[in-house]
């Protein structure tokens, strides 16, 4: 696909466009990393988009009242972690289905945010856009942070005992419990991590503009779930890789730009993405069955 694009549309991979693409991918990738852990642990998190929006508002408001950006960003990440921990508590300890819990927290967060901010943009943010650096430097900081998070997560999934526990829990929670692991702690943990990463994603997205829109993050949950699934994460748990998720983010993210370049009408974007999801999952299942 990428090769087709490169041939069909000279300029697609021109340095300008590539940079725009990369920086656009960064927040989605960070959130999708968290989602991958959630899905591998055989859960789902519908509330990441709403967490994302809440964290974006938190970082913006703190910067406006004079907090230094790094400190405000840390606060946003902790806010995300706390919101994720709430999901985790309900799912891991009250044993409620995660789709219901996170759907509920999604609505509560979204509507709560609307009531609080009335959809108003948050402006006048000192030294906020691109961390107060030049645009070029800022872009590389954003991309660099996303890349570092990705590398750390991929390493953790493979190299940490905790990563192994996530895969075991997702494969079979009861078997994991019988093996002396603590599936409850794993479930709680993946939600908290997903929340923290949603917070970080919100910061990476917010600094790309001079103001923060509390409606940012709408549809985010679907995009990141789609990226993980296209990348081979099985909703039935236990399977999925971060490299796969990276490819999923790249593939789905490129389509939007490709459509512009190919001069198709914009409304085709989501339809094509939907088609790709079906194709990816169907081919994965068929390949698995034939083995």
């Amino acid at each position, binding site marked *: 696909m990428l090769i087709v694009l490169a041939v069909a549309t000279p300029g697609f991979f021109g340095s300008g466009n590539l940079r725009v693409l990369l920086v656009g991918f960064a927040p989605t990738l960070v959130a999708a990393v968290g989602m991958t852990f959630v899905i591998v642990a055989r859960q789902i998190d519908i509330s990441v988009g709403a967490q994302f929006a809440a964290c974006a508002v938190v970082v913006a408001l703190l910067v406006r009242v004079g907090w230094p950006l790094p400190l405000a960003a840390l606060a946003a990440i902790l806010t995300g972690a706390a919101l994720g921990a709430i999901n985790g508590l309900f799912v891991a300890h009250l044993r409620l289905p995660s789709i219901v819990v996170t759907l509920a927290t999604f609505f509560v967060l979204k509507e709560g945010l609307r009531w609080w901010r009335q959809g108003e943009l948050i402006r006048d943010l000192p030294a906020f856009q691109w961390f107060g650096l030049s645009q070029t430097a800022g872009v590389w900081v954003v991309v660099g942070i996303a890349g570092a998070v990705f590398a750390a997560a991929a390493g953790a999934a493979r190299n940490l005992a905790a990563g192994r526990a996530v895969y*075991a829990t997702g494969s079979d929670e009861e*078997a994991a419990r019988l093996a002396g692991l*603590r599936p409850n702690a794993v479930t709680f943990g993946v939600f908290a991590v997903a929340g923290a990463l949603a917070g970080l994603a919100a910061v990476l997205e917010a600094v790309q503009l001079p103001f923060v829109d509390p409606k940012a993050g709408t549809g985010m949950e679907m995009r990141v779930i789609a990226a993980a699934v296209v990348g081979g994460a099985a909703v039935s748990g236990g399977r999925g890789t971060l490299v796969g998720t990276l490819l999923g983010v790249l593939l789905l993210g490129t389509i939007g730009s490709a459509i512009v370049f190919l001069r198709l009408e914009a409304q085709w974007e989501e339809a094509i993405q939907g088609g790709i999801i079906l194709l990816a999952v169907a081919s994965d299942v068929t390949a698995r069955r034939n083995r």
Partner: protein
Amino acid sequence: MPPLLKLTDVSKAFGGVRALRAVSFDLLPGEVHALVGENGAGKSTLIKIVTGAHRPDGGTLEIGGRLVTDHDPLAARGWGVAVVYQQPALFPDLTVAENIAIALEPPGPWRRVRWNARRARARELLACVGARIDPDADARTLTMPEQQLVEIAKAVGTDAKVVVMDEPTASLSDREVETLFRVVRDLTARGVGVVYVSHRLDELPRIADRVTALRDGELVGTRAVAETTRADLIRMMVGRELGAVFPKVEATPGRVVLEARNLACRAAGVSAVSLSVRAGEILGLAGLVGAGRTELAGVLFGLTPADAGEILLDGKPVRIGSPAAAVALGIAYVPEDRRRYGVILDLPVAANVTLAVLRRVSDRGFLNFRRERGLAEDFARTLGVKVPSVEEPAGTLSGGNQQKVALARWLATDPRVIILDEPTQGVDIGAKAEIHRLIGDLAAKGLAVVLISSELPEVLAMSDRIAVMHGGTVTGVLARSEATQERVLELALAKGVPA
């Protein structure tokens, strides 16, 4: 009178395992014909052939004097055969009346439901079996015996000529048993024949006319109950062949490692269990299906923590509230149903082996793959796991090899007590002998081994002592020298026999 049901020389094999060999069985109108046999004797297979769930490989099945071919569960209903399973299979979210209607009303998606008629019919049938149950109650709110009565009401409602009851009294109290017997006598008075499977030998003289015993898929004999004593029945049931050679090493057991005193857990249905196991000893845990052996293992391993009694480890009382706590105390449990719980099929063999000892193969949380591989390869070698590489997913291995991987995971924890739940279930003869050798080796190395097995010969051959369970408690502990199949079975079938 022609028999209602007649099986002639029926055989059935699953894979290479012969479940039934040329068994003949018949049922007369108005008769209760009991079917007895140990676990795996072929009772269930016989029932499933009658109900159409399995097709016989050889022999013939006649119902009402007519030869039945192309049998299936729906056709069985048409033939007038109804089954009451040990575990009632009601739809929990539907009402009692709806559950009964599903079995009785003709199928068809566009048929209009006559709610009042449906309810009235349910009420009538429930009265018929002497059950005081609200037809509008959801099935999930019923107790086990109530659910069983609903199942029987269903069978009555189909106007069945042949009613098969699989352990109907297993979960009933004495009073409920009386009600059930009355229902059964009502049925037979109307000319219905009842096939009655039961482990409670004491109740047979009160309800059954004839009894047929199966052993290892073969017919031992059919007798009139009036002329058969309990001892006769037990003699007919025991005497299974040994499936493989059991190289038992004589060991001198050391001090007591694990002891249970009056252990009970309501949720698991385990009560007043007292037993002990010594270092280097194999304690067999025998009993019929549903006696509470796996449940007891669950209590000892912290899956369903005990709510009364004591567990002592090395003489010190311990509390085992979770599997993680059990592992920390040096207790290991290799569960039954290894495909489901024993190994994680998606994960490589190496990861399966180290899953319970992740801390030992990692440095400050980081997995050390070389150490993991080394550990897994060591175990694969000593246990003889046949696998090209320990990086292969566990799902690709054969049953016997998966069992060895499950065993390896727990041996890696360096346990002091290991509970093995049906370790040779569904593995081939060769792997079975190997697993037996491994179990012997473990005991020889000083582990305290608890061996749960439904194969009586296996328990007898492997164990130093045998604890026999019935109804969630230990009914007796036999030393190796005094354990015979008869004595074990006597205790396993016991009702209130003092230990």
